C-alpha cells in the first residue's frame, strides 16, 4: 500500500501540471495494480487537500496524525467537565473541547484518566498528548508544562445545604466547618479568605458532599465549575452561594517548549470561539445546570519562562 499512496500523490501533482504526466501516472498506477480508486483520485485530487490540514513533518501535529489518535488526559470523576458514565462513555465540556481539537487534526480522541497528581508526569512522559482536566493555569505549573488557552474561566465559590440560610458568602464562614480537597489551590486560598473557618480536607469532593449531607461539615469550597458538577447530581440537597472570589483560567496542558503545537491549539480555540462550536459544547454540558453561560476567555499567549 505504501507504494500506492506515493503514486497517488504524484498523480495529483501531475494533473495540475500537464495531461501527459497524468496519463503516465495513471499508467504507473495501473502497473502497480492499485485498483479502481485511482481513477476517482485523478478526478477529485485537487479537492482532497482541503479537508486534511498539512503539518510540518517533525511537528507534534504530524506525529498525532500518523498515530491516528490524540491521547487526552482528562478527569473521569468531574461531572459536567470530564466524567466517565456507567456506559463507559466519557463526557463533559473538557471532553468536548478535546474532541474538537482531535477533529481539527483529523483524528479521533482517546481518553485516559488524569487525576490532579499525575497531570504533569503524564505530559512530561508523553503518556498523553494533551491534558484537558479542569487544569488551572498558574505560574508554578507554567514552569513545568506549557498551557494553551484558557478555554474556560471559573472562580472559587461555596456550596452549602439547600436548607441552610446561615451561609450566604465567604464572610459567614467564621466558626463553620468548610471542606475541600487536600493539596488543592482552593484549600489554600480559603485559609486567607475565611481564616476563622475550620478546614476539613479529603481526597475527593464526593466525600465533602457526603460529609455535608451528614452535617459533618457545613460548606464545600472549590472552583464554581466543580461545585456546579456536584449540584448537578443533587439538585434538591445542595446550592451554590455567593460571588466567586478568585479567577481560575482552565488551560490545555502540553509538553513544555512545544510552541508549534501550542500555537495550533490556540488557533483552534479562537476558531471555535468564532464558529459557535465552543458555545455549543458549553451549552450541551455546563448549560444543563447553569443558566447564564460565560463568554469565551481570551487566549493568553504568554511567553514561557
Amino acid at each position, binding site marked *: 500500500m505504501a507504494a500506492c499512496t506515493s503514486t497517488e500523490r504524484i498523480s495529483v501533482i501531475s494533473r495540475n501540471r500537464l495531461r501527459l504526466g497524468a496519463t503516465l501516472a495513471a499508467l504507473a498506477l495501473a502497473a502497480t495494480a492499485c485498483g479502481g480508486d485511482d481513477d476517482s483520485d485523478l478526478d477529485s485530487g485537487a479537492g482532497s487537500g482541503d479537508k486534511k490540514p498539512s503539518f510540518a513533518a517533525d511537528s507534534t501535529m504530524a506525529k498525532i496524525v500518523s498515530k491516528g489518535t490524540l491521547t487526552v488526559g482528562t478527569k473521569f470523576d468531574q461531572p459536567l467537565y470530564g466524567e466517565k458514565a456507567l456506559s463507559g462513555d466519557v463526557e463533559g465540556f473538557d471532553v468536548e473541547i478535546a474532541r474538537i481539537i482531535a477533529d481539527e487534526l483529523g483524528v479521533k480522541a482517546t481518553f485516559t484518566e488524569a487525576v490532579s*497528581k*499525575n497531570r*504533569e*508526569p503524564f505530559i512530561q512522559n508523553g503518556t498523553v498528548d494533551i491534558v484537558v482536566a479542569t487544569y488551572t493555569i498558574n505560574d*508554578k*505549573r507554567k*514552569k*513545568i508544562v506549557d498551557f494553551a488557552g484558557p478555554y474556560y474561566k471559573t472562580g472559587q465559590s461555596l456550596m452549602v445545604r439547600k436548607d441552610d440560610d446561615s451561609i450566604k458568602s465567604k464572610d459567614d464562614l467564621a466558626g463553620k466547618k468548610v471542606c475541600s480537597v*487536600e*493539596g*488543592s*489551590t482552593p484549600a*489554600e486560598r480559603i485559609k486567607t479568605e475565611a481564616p476563622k473557618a475550620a478546614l*476539613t*480536607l*479529603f*481526597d*475527593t469532593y464526593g*466525600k465533602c458532599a*457526603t*460529609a455535608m449531607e*451528614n*452535617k*459533618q461539615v457545613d460548606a464545600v469550597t472549590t472552583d464554581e465549575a466543580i461545585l456546579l458538577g456536584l449540584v448537578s447530581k443533587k439538585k434538591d440537597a445542595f446550592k451554590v452561594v455567593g460571588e466567586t472570589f478568585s479567577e481560575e483560567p482552565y488551560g490545555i496542558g502540553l509538553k513544555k517548549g512545544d510552541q508549534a503545537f501550542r500555537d495550533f491549539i490556540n488557533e483552534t480555540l479562537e476558531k471555535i470561539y468564532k464558529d459557535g462550536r465552543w458555545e455549543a459544547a458549553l451549552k450541551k454540558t455546563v448549560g444543563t445546570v447553569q443558566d447564564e453561560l460565560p463568554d469565551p476567555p481570551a487566549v493568553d499567549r504568554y511567553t514561557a519562562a
Partner: protein
Amino acid sequence: MQLSTITDNLDVYLEGFVGTLELTALGALGSLVLGTVLATMRVSPVPSLRAGATVYVEILRNCPLPVLAVLLAFGLPKLGEPIRSFSFFTWAVLALALYHAAFVCEALRSGVNSVSTGQGEAARSLGLTFGQTMSLVVLPQAFRTVVPPLGNILIALTKNSAVAATIDVTDITNQTEFVINDTVDPLAALAGAAFFYLLLTLPTGLLVGKLERRTAFSR
C-alpha cells in the same frame, strides 16, 4: 525531580510523620486487644462466640480498607449524635484497628493451634477455667510463636494508615499532597513520602526481629 522538594519541606513531612506514628500506635494497640479477644472467641467452647468471631473476621479481612474507612467515617455518622461528632482521626483509628484486628485474630489463632493440646488438657485437669487456661497457659505460648506474623501485620498497618489521608487526617501521605501542590514535583514528593514510611517500617522490622530472638523457644 529535585532533592530540594524534600529537603525544603522537612517540617511538613515531620508533621505528617508524627500523625502516622500516632495512627500506627493507636491502631496497633486497638487491633492487638480486639484481635486477642476475637482469637479467644474463635477457640472458645461456646458456639455462638465462635460463629460471631468467624463472621467478623471473614467480613473485615475481605473488605478493602479504603472502603471500610469511608463506610465507617461517612456511614455511621448518619446514626446521629453523638457519633456524628466523632473526629475523623477517631474514625481513622477505628478503621485501622477494626480491620487489622481480623488479621491479628487469625495470626493468633494459628499460634494457639500450635500450642500442643496436652497443655490445655493439663491446665484443665488442674482445675483452671477456660479464661485462665487461655490467659495463663495458651496465649503466652501462642504469642511468642506469632511474633513474626504480628510484625508483618504491624508493618502493613503502618503503611495502610495512609488511608487516613483520605479522611482529613494529617499523616505522611496527606502532607505529601501539600508538597506536591506546592512544588509541582510529584515524583520527588512521593519519594519523600516513601523515605518517611521506611523511617517507620524499617526499625519496626528490626525490632520485631529482635523480639523474635528474645522470645524464641530453646528447642
